[in-house]
């Protein structure tokens, strides 16, 4: 990567007029567009097929042959049964609750801690920061057994807190936020200081307004991660009424058997909430992956 570092400054040396090759469509470009379009459509096949199946009658869906992308006879029977039974909606509410708790707590706790590490000095700071950072390397999957023990000792099995609290431990978010806070010039805070603002006030009115994108990235990623978490909710939610959507769909709905239209209706509904989140926040998510992953 030294190559990149030595080369980048050269971009300032010559403000060369960028030659626009507009209007010249080469064979290579056409090929790239064709390949990209083909792959993108191919990548959508599973989702489109699920969508198509979900609107078929159960008879047509289970017959399978011949493969029909447009249902012979449109039916919302799968969706109707799903809503009538009600558990799908319940799991969706549970998932939303748990993910909101996790996201809000993660943001609050990590922002406070990151500010403390970035702007304040206190005895033992380096040690505490090192211990927390080391947690980035610990796979939570390797902790499920004792974690379950801790959570049951706290009597949190089959509770929202039991589902949520272990997911709040996200050292990598502290790392990301602290580094972002470190990069904010101290001058901004001086004015607030002179006005007599304390640290909480400074954090709220100076640092946070400057941190919109990074907070969005951390928040969205925490939400997606929590919504899609499977192993931990599988362990800690045994009561179907407390299950999250992925667990409910995987464990309970998996037992419905051969009702394909209904299954695919459940899949479509299960995919929908985060697909909507993704479409709304596509820009932040794309940037967030770059920020969270690379830095």
């Amino acid at each position: 990567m030294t190559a990149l570092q030595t080369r980048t400054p050269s971009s300032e040396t010559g403000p060369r007029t960028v030659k626009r090759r507009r209007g010249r469509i080469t064979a290579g470009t056409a090929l790239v567009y064709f390949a990209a379009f083909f792959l993108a459509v191919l990548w959508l096949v599973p989702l489109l097929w699920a969508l198509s199946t979900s609107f078929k009658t159960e008879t047509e869906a289970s017959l399978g042959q011949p493969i029909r992308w447009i249902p012979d006879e449109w039916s919302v029977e799968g969706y109707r049964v799903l809503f009538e039974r009600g558990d799908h909606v319940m799991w969706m509410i549970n998932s939303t609750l748990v993910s909101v708790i996790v996201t809000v707590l993660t943001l609050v706790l990590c922002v406070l801690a990151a500010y403390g590490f970035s702007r304040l000095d206190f005895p033992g700071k380096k040690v505490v920061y090192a211990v927390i950072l080391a947690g980035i390397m610990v796979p939570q999957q390797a902790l499920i057994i004792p974690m379950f023990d801790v959570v049951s000792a706290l009597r949190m099995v089959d509770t929202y807190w039991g589902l949520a609290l272990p997911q709040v431990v996200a050292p990598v978010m502290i790392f990301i936020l602290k580094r972002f806070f470190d990069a904010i010039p101290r001058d901004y805070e001086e004015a607030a200081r002179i006005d007599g603002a304390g640290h909480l006030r400074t954090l709220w009115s100076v640092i946070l307004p400057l941190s919109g994108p990074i907070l969005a990235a951390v928040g969205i990623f925490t939400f997606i991660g929590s919504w899609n978490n499977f192993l931990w909710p599988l362990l800690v939610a045994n009561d179907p009424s407390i299950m999250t959507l992925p667990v409910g769909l995987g464990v309970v709905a998996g037992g419905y058997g051969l009702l394909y239209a209904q299954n695919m209706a459940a899949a479509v509904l299960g995919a929908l909430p985060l697909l909507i989140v993704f479409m709304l926040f596509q820009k932040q998510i794309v940037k967030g992956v770059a920020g969270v992953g690379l830095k």
Partner: protein
Amino acid sequence: MTTETETPAAAPTAEQPPPPAARAPRRRSWLGLWFVLPFAAVYAVFMLWPMLLGLYYSFTDKSLTGRPVSWIGLENWSEAFGDAKAWDSLWNTAWFTILSTPPLVVLGLAFALLAHRARKLGWFLRLSFFAPFVIPVSVVTMVWLWMYQPAGGLINHYLGEWGLGGDRLWAFQAESMGSVVITTVWWTLGFNFLLYLAALQTIPQEVYEAADIDGANAFQKLWGITLPLLGRTTALVVVLQLIASLRIFDQYYLMAGGASNLSPENVFIQYIYNSGFVGFRVGYASALSYILFFFILLVALVQFRLMSRRED
């Protein structure tokens, strides 16, 4: 820790002279601890404590049935090292990692290169390639198991139509490792795709213009400029992918493992899970967990170095 280099707190004496500014001086006080404490408390209860507890359990015969715990020394560990089933499941995890990592890295790069060139399709490509990543795993496996159906399934239908023998292909039997790998590639490729796409966008255009002047063709530019400049991203993608793949459980459990219980073969986390929650042997499962932890730690140390080097 390299991240600690530029905290300006180490100069308390310098800011004595102007009295008004000294209202909130950066002196060492316990105040900072209050900011860190809420997270540290959750971290201690749900990370440090389970880690220590797990280590302790690995030296005991702790059981889910709740009978008294007694210290048995290294018995769990020596049993784990001699346990053929544990090694088989560890090998399955390794095999999954070997099969899934190359396509996830190479295709992630290829798709990003395409999307970078085909900019007018940008929104559509990002949606199509990344959207699967935000879908819950059980939805993913439901849809793919439906597509893998031997009779009436989409994949075997088209394979049969094109004369490729349908379900005789090992990858397309729903409960096989190949199916899990293909499903995983579809599901998680988008993350690597976006990492590469972001990295491609940081490469300055001038570099390519210089190559144009030298008369380099597209392939030479790719091989001589783009790929070398992506070297660091590739290192990171590979490491993150290895860690993710070593943790394989969810989709395997739902497609080939516990839920359908058709396969006697396990991946490692499934074996840990079964030892602890089906066999009730918490002590033994804890020892196994630490073996997994060790392998992931080896890879994670590389990640950690990559991340902190980025600081400079």
